[in-house]
């Protein structure tokens, strides 16, 4: 049971992953000409930024659900 304790701050990979997604989510790496081609109505660069935004939502939601478990078992037992 003890091994199941999970605290996000102690898992380095979570934060490295977050940093990578955030870096991808700000359009510093596009050159000025990357407005075209349009993808689904988005300018080329903005499409990628939007995609990264969705990834960011999914990633954080998933981390909350799977990488965070400190007192849950005890609380569930108390119920």
């Amino acid at each position, binding site marked *: 049971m*003890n*091994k199941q*304790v999970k*605290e*996000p*701050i102690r898992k380095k990979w*979570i934060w490295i992953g*977050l940093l990578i997604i*955030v870096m991808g*989510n*700000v*359009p*510093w790496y*596009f*050159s*000025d000409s*990357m*407005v075209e081609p*349009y993808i*689904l*109505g*988005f*300018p080329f*660069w*903005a499409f990628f*930024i*939007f995609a*990264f*935004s*969705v990834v*960011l*939502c*999914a990633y*954080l*939601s*998933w*981390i*909350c*659900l799977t990488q*965070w*478990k*400190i*007192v*849950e078992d005890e*609380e*569930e037992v108390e*119920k």
Partner: protein
Amino acid sequence: MGELTFAGIDGIVILTVFAIIMLVIGYYSGRGEKNIHESLSGYYLASGNLGIVALFFTLFATQYSGNTIVGYAPSAYRTGFSWLQSISFMTIIIGVYLLFAPRLYVIAKKRNFITPTDWLQHRFNSKGVTLLAIFLMLWGLGNYLLEQLVAIGQAVSGMTGGTIPYQVAVIAFVLVMLAYEWMGGMKAVAFTDVMQGIVLLIGILAFVAGGVYLAGGSFGSITQFIAENEPAKIAVPSAEVNINWFSMLILVGLGASIYPHAVQRIYAAKSEKTLKKSFARMAWMPLLTTGLVFLVGIIGIKLFPGLEGNASEQLVGVMANEIATINPFFYWIMIIFFGGIVAAIVSTADSVLLSFSSLISNDVYGKFIKPDASEHRKVMVGKIIGIIAIFGLLWIAWNPPGTLYEIFVLKFELLVQVFPAFVLGLYWKRLNSKPVFWGMVLGAIVAGLLTFTGHKTVYGIHGGIIGLTLNFIVCVGGSLLSSASLKRDPVLEEDLNAVYIKA
């Protein structure tokens, strides 16, 4: 908000219905629960017993205010696609919560914390740190509340086409809010948030549907229009915009997660499971709110080209007028949408007020003026000072400042200075009170000075972030330099080790 001539009497009817629903919810939240008025935890934290539905909606409705729509759509309109940042900066808040909420939840439950200050007092046991933190938090909350009060008036008078004047609108909704909050405390706030959050979501979805319909249905044709007429709005952002974007992520992420009312929602969760599930859902909400609002702004560029400055601030109102003329269905949906905006503002204001009162009850009065007073009395003092503060702020609100966005940044600048003490203190035993105090002081002064001298950003970086960097340096450097590190405090030692011992 513009002259919403389409609404008038119908708007008044919807607003009245909403107000009555809020009062009924408030009444039933407080009825038969003696605990609510007799204990700080009962009144301010719903006895730490909020289940998944109430917790999720109160997180949602508190974080997303009417401004998120009324203020952000014009931002998207003016800046174009680079306003996609509004999705990321609202999402990153959940990432910052993950830095501290899991552990804070455990300690807060164990030690029965009421306010964020309880944690700081417990951790640093320093009058200076406690007082300064209270001051910064009250300042931030006060400003935030002021902004909501200004917004309520603009929204209501806009919606009713001026039939209800600005000042009457504010007073009416403030009274409704005060009444249900008085009756049910956090429980009333959270339960009304469920209703307010649902109305807001329905409203946004309908608004976007109407906007897309008006614009001809194809997103591609909108982008095409922008490319031909205002290419700057689809261009790849410049380096300064990108730096500002990063800065915004840090400022909003750290600031919004550390808001006293946000922290208190961690305390109010029924269980860890409830809390993490709520956060997991919250992580998706930016797409449904700021994401759709972004879309509204972009659609607006095609529908109403050429609006500038103040005229662009009216975008949502102007657009709602157009959508309402499509057919009777959309007419009513738009009225509900505006009611939703008012509900969203009220749902944010009530939470901020409750948190403001709790800081007065538990921290100012309970820690410094009369620690031995009964909890009933402490709750009472908080309620009454809260009401006085509201009317003080209303007095200021009669002269609303320029655009909403500017005040929004100002409140974060100071509040965010509490972050190092709050979060670093959870994990780093060596961090001690003196550097924390001076870090906060210097950070707040730098942030305040930069803002007041008109340097809200330097090379795109917000003044609050520059202050915060200095704050962190002082905290860490000072703590490393001071010879005596952690005073052996067995209770604190136990708390900070709690998670490790378990593992």
